[in-house]
């Protein structure tokens, strides 16, 4: 005849007499109430029993004002914003022990507003505890935390010596242009590998990355190993030595040298190298540089991947680089073999009749050459290529090749498009580079800008390169509808662009989005 058992038994089909619970007088105040384990009405219970007795009302937390982190003893610093769930977690952990000792359980907690500069954090806890013959009482309890300021270890180290670095990665490539570094910069941004660097500085011939610990520097070097053909040398220098604990502090230097062959470089292989690589024609074009160099023989359409170590055996340099590209106009083209695809890039062997743009109209110098760009070129197109007919080279291997083989006069490298100064729909992020102030030569700025522009154009044309880096939508882009239709200049399609994160001004962005989609896709 327990009051609670009636529903269960009646479910089973038994007859259970009804059991209404009677009223009992509260033993303290005499008010009629339902019986409970303590047999006191709730007001008497609450008045008599204080479950928050012994629960701390004040506690302390330690806060680093530089990096807005809170200390979790003994040693970890956790970042938490004001009145955030992480902060709540930190504060609750501080008072967890005394609560558990008193067998009080926490059923809720919330922040009470306090001025940030008052250095006090207020929480209102809802505590639950069992008292007196099994009655569970719930009561609110305010707790105040005093915030003490103390610099955390990393901030104090940074404060003491802001330029202090422990390891440096010196990235160098001995070529006159900086295209590789522009591309590497974008790769580093995409993979977030330079986030641990204290400082990034530009040096003549490359970049310097400064790190706070050797392992961070080693991580960057490992990453570079996978994306570029590099060779590394390490060195260390003793800075200080603690005799008592026998701890040695060093400065580590990683000298990383990137192979000097870049894309679109023309290389003349020595006869031995040519023989070792399987009879690759003496003239090869470098088409792709990842952690190995892809060499294409434009006359036979063979691609060979050369690893860094093998490269060091021959150590050949580029005979002609992209600075020496000359513009040609295609007069006639005749496809010789079907289009093939190697490594994701398409090539087609074709015979082309070309003339230099500087010659065009002035004289009749026409060259008939074999080219690998048969799938791209049409009569009337412009193309860029290396002029071997008129070149004056200082290269032993090239001389040998010239004497032994019948070299073509022109090697076409890529198709060129009309230069149209227009804004692009996309933009790139840059690393926070410190420019080398002392080493500025005249005209260097302009050269840098030109190189950057050329780099952006390369990105537009090469989808493979774009795959590896992040492109962001340019909010300042205004579509020029009339001029873009009918133009076959390659542009980056909208799917590949990433929405850049901006704070505020959401309406403007929405407008911009709508504007962009109306412009349509141009291929």
């Amino acid at each position, binding site marked *: *005849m*327990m*009051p609670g*058992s009636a529903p269960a038994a009646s479910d089973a089909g038994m007859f259970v*007499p*009804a*059991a*209404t*619970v*009677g009223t*009992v*007088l*509260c*033993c*303290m*105040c*005499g008010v009629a109430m339902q*019986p409970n384990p*303590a*047999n*006191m009405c709730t007001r008497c219970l609450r008045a008599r029993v204080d479950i928050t007795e012994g629960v701390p009302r004040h506690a302390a937390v330690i806060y680093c004002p530089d990096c807005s982190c809170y200390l979790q003893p003994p040693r970890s610093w956790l970042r938490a914003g004001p009145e955030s769930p992480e902060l709540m977690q930190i504060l609750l952990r501080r008072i967890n022990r005394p609560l558990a000792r008193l067998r009080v359980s926490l059923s809720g907690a919330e922040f009470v507003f306090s001025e940030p500069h008052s250095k006090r954090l207020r929480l209102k806890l809802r505590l639950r505890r069992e008292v*007196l*013959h099994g009655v569970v009482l719930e009561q609110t309890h305010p707790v105040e935390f005093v915030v003490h300021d103390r610099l955390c270890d990393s901030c104090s180290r940074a404060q003491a010596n802001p330029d202090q670095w422990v390891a440096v990665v010196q990235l160098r490539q001995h070529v006159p242009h900086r295209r590789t570094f522009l591309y590497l910069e974008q790769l580093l941004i995409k993979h977030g590998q330079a986030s641990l660097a204290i400082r990034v500085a530009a040096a003549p011939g490359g970049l310097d990355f400064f790190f706070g610990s050797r392992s961070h520097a080693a991580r960057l070097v490992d990453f570079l190993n996978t994306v570029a053909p590099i060779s590394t040398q390490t060195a260390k220098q003793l800075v200080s030595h603690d005799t008592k604990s026998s701890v040695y502090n060093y400065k580590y230097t990683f000298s990383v040298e990137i192979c000097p062959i870049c894309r679109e470089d023309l290389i003349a292989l020595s006869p031995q190298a040519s023989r070792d690589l399987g009879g690759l024609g003496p003239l090869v074009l470098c088409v792709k540089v990842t952690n190995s160099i892809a060499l294409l023989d434009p006359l036979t359409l063979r691609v060979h991947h050369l690893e860094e170590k093998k490269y060091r055996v021959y150590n050949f340099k580029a005979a002609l680089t992209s600075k020496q590209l000359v513009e040609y106009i295609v007069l006639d083209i005749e496809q010789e073999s079907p289009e093939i695809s190697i490594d994701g890039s398409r090539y087609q062997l074709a015979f082309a009749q070309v003339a230099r743009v500087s010659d065009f109209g002035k004289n009749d110098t026409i060259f008939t050459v074999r080219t690998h760009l048969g799938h791209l070129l049409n009569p009337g197109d412009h193309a860029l290529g290396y002029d071997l007919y008129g070149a004056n080279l200082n290269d032993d291997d090239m001389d040998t090749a010239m004497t032994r083989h019948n070299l073509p006069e022109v090697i076409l490298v890529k198709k060129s498009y009309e230069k149209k100064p227009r804004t692009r729909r996309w933009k790139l992020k840059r690393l926070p580079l410190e420019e080398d102030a002392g080493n500025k030569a005249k005209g260097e700025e302009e050269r840098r800008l030109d190189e950057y522009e050329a780099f952006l154009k390369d990105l537009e044309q090469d989808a493979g390169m774009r795959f590896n880096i992040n492109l962001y939508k340019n909010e300042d882009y205004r579509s020029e509808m009339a001029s873009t239709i009918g133009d076959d200049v390659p542009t980056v399609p909208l799917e590949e662009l990433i929405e850049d994160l901006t704070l505020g001004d959401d309406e403007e962005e929405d407008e911009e989005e709508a504007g962009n989609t109306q412009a349509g896709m141009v291929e």
Partner: protein
Amino acid sequence: MLLKVGCIQFENNCEVGVFSKLTNAYCLVAIGGSENFYRLASLLGFTILSYCVDLILTILIDDSGNKNGLLLPHTTTDQELQHLRNCLPDQVVVQRIDERLSALGNCVACNDHVALTHPDLDKETEELIADVLGVEVFRQTIAGNILVGSYCAFSNRGGLVHPHTSIEDLDELSTLLQVPLVAGTVNRGSEVIAAGMTVNDWTAFCGSDTTATELSVIESVYKLREGQPTAIVDDMRKSLIDSYV
């Protein structure tokens, strides 16, 4: 006769029902209590027949009785049995019974007419109770508890039961016992009624933790409140007149 309720402690413990047994004919008290305990008992109209100082009297949960008889468990020694027979008035039958459930005070609650017992009590014991105590025996539970002797205390005039007893149960018990019943607590919310208090037709003793509310409930249900001044004066007048004449 004065009708009163007293709040006392036995050796600083408020569970006086455990240490004493009160009926209309006699009162048994455990040894070791202070003088105050006995003095209060005598003030309320009892004569102390003897002090059980030589023998060790077992804790008085273990027996059950009314004015007609007293039942003792099988653990009672012969000496105790003899002593009790000597001390108690002759009309009280003292009997020792063999029963598996030896804590008779927990198992049996009785007044002079009706007794409620533990549902698992032996048949022979039930018959013995009916014979010795001269009562009608009913097997019952109180608020789902089988220990009826500890969760209710009733006299010939009223009774107090466990606070969680439902209304239907109260009605049923009341019809069985033919006395008014109320669900309540004693000793500041304790549900073990019979351990916290002991009662007969005109007096009740409760533990000192009992609150005023509980006391008023006890006074009203056991009808202990008719302390009219006229009754006192009537008593006194008899003695006064005697001396005059």
